[in-house]
């Protein structure tokens, strides 16, 4: 294992310290917890948004704490859901009386830990609700499984629900909008190469030199299959196909696109992918209202990318284009 770290046990702690040093105008630490919240409480009372999950997905989730997006983020151990006490502290720290919405990615562990936090906070009289993001079309969505995983589409939920909360909307309205985004967003990824969890010390999975994994999860969970490396256009074609097969879109509809790097993929390659995404969508008569390119939901140093497509209506579009001011996403 070759990493710029000090000791594996301290990576999350030291990263959080580094984030606070880097962005004191945006985030501060909840003392004694792996929780970052906005440096300044919002001026007017608003619904507070908390997200989180295992670490290793930076800039998710703490990178999106700031005006127009999240109010707090909880950092678990690398690729491991945070514990209920941590989430509970985040909820207490950000609640300002209008309630708290938890944005959870659909993994059993995340759901259970966050639900326990909801029980703890509810016992204190704090109004807490949750939405569960499940955008990964690589996973079969049947009644026999726990459903799809949440991946990069989660960032679009943060953006849009965050913008809605900023308008002063009530908790149930913010939740409604978050659920609409979840309903309208689909993602799928691919990996060229694995990543190594510091505490594990060896790669999560191993790919041959010319082999790629299609549809793996952001913790390196196995995907749909492995195949021989193909061109960017062919891979992109396949992923967009899978997404659109799951969410048919009619000519004339508007979408937003997120081409997300998993950690070790150069922007050059993400742009090459986006070129094809844009062409494919245009071919289908779809209008792209907004494109995000870059590392939004990474998997440590995994090489690869994911594509997310969000179907927009006028409400979602307006909220997506609304301003945001966070360490990892600034939009005017």
């Amino acid at each position, binding site marked *: 294992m070759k990493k710029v770290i000090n000791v594996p046990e301290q990576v999350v702690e030291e990263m959080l310290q580094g984030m606070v040093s880097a962005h004191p105008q945006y985030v501060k630490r909840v003392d004694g917890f792996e929780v970052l919240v906005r440096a300044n409480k919002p001026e007017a009372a608003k619904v507070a948004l908390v997200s989180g999950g295992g670490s290793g997905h930076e800039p998710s989730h703490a990178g999106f704490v700031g005006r127009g997006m999240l109010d707090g983020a909880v950092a678990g151990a690398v690729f491991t859901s945070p514990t209920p006490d941590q989430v509970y502290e985040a909820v207490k720290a950000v609640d300002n009386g209008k309630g708290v919405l938890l944005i959870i990615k659909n993994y*059993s562990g995340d759901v*259970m*830990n966050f639900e326990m936090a909801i029980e703890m906070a509810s016992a204190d009289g704090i109004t807490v609700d949750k939405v569960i993001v499940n955008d990964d079309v690589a996973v*079969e969505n049947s009644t026999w499984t726990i459903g799809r995983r949440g991946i990069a589409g989660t960032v679009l939920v943060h953006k849009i629900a965050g913008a809605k909360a900023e308008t002063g909307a009530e908790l149930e309205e913010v939740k409604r909008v978050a659920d609409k985004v979840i309903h309208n967003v689909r993602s799928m990824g691919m990996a060229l190469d694995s990543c190594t*969890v510091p*505490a*594990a010390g060896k790669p*999560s999975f191993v790919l041959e030199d010319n082999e790629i994994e299609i549809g793996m999860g952001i913790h*390196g969970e196995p995907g749909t299959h492995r195949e021989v490396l193909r061109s960017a256009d062919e891979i992109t074609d396949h992923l967009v196909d899978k997404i659109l097969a799951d969410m048919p879109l009619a000519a004339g509809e508007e979408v937003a696109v997120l081409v997300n790097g998993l950690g070790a993929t150069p922007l050059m390659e993400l742009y090459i992918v986006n070129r094809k995404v844009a062409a494919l969508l245009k071919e289908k008569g779809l209008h792209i209202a907004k494109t995000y390119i870059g590392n939004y939901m990474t998997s440590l140093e995994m090489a690869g990318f994911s594509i997310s497509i969000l179907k927009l209506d006028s409400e979602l579009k307006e909220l997506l284009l609304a301003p945001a001011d966070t360490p990892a996403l600034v939009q005017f």
Partner: protein
Amino acid sequence: MSGNLYEVISAVGEMIIGNRQKLTDLDAAIGDGDHGINMARGFEAVKAKLQGMEMESDIGKVLKIVGMTLISSVGGAAGPLYGTAFLRAAAPSQGKTELDTQTIGLMLEAAIAGIKERGKATTGEKTMLDALVPAYEAFQDGANTGKTVTACLELAYEAAQQGVEFTKTIIATKGRASYLGERSRGHQDPGATSSYIMLKALVEYLRR
């Protein structure tokens, strides 16, 4: 059951910590490769917590502390599940300093009910329940025929071992491994394995 509760917990913890790599490798095959890391971190935390406090003879109180510590240190799916299991097992053992077969039966039953409630799973879904439920049933069979605590736990341990073997034959419908569907078959479940390891540590301690 006689014997020192602290020694039992420490024996269980040491065996989990000793199997950190094995549990992690099992999870890497069908999950995300953190089960051993998470469980070891949890039992290290339990060790530190128990060492740092005054000796407590009430078994229920100690188990409650173990449960709370696991909940706040393990994370993932296993944290809430095992944490809840220990918290629930604490109730029937509240105020007790020794355990008989009847109490242990109630503790196992409560622990399993807690796991089922929290995880909304049942047997046959390739989870820790596939080790724990047969273990509980074997324990009760032994208890009903008047066997000693140690003999009942040995039966439970053997049933858990078979339960782990059984997980190899089925596909996962709960937890991260469920994403693999058919491809999860042939692999043994990490959570069932950690449950089996805990029972193994318990039985080995009693045999000493």
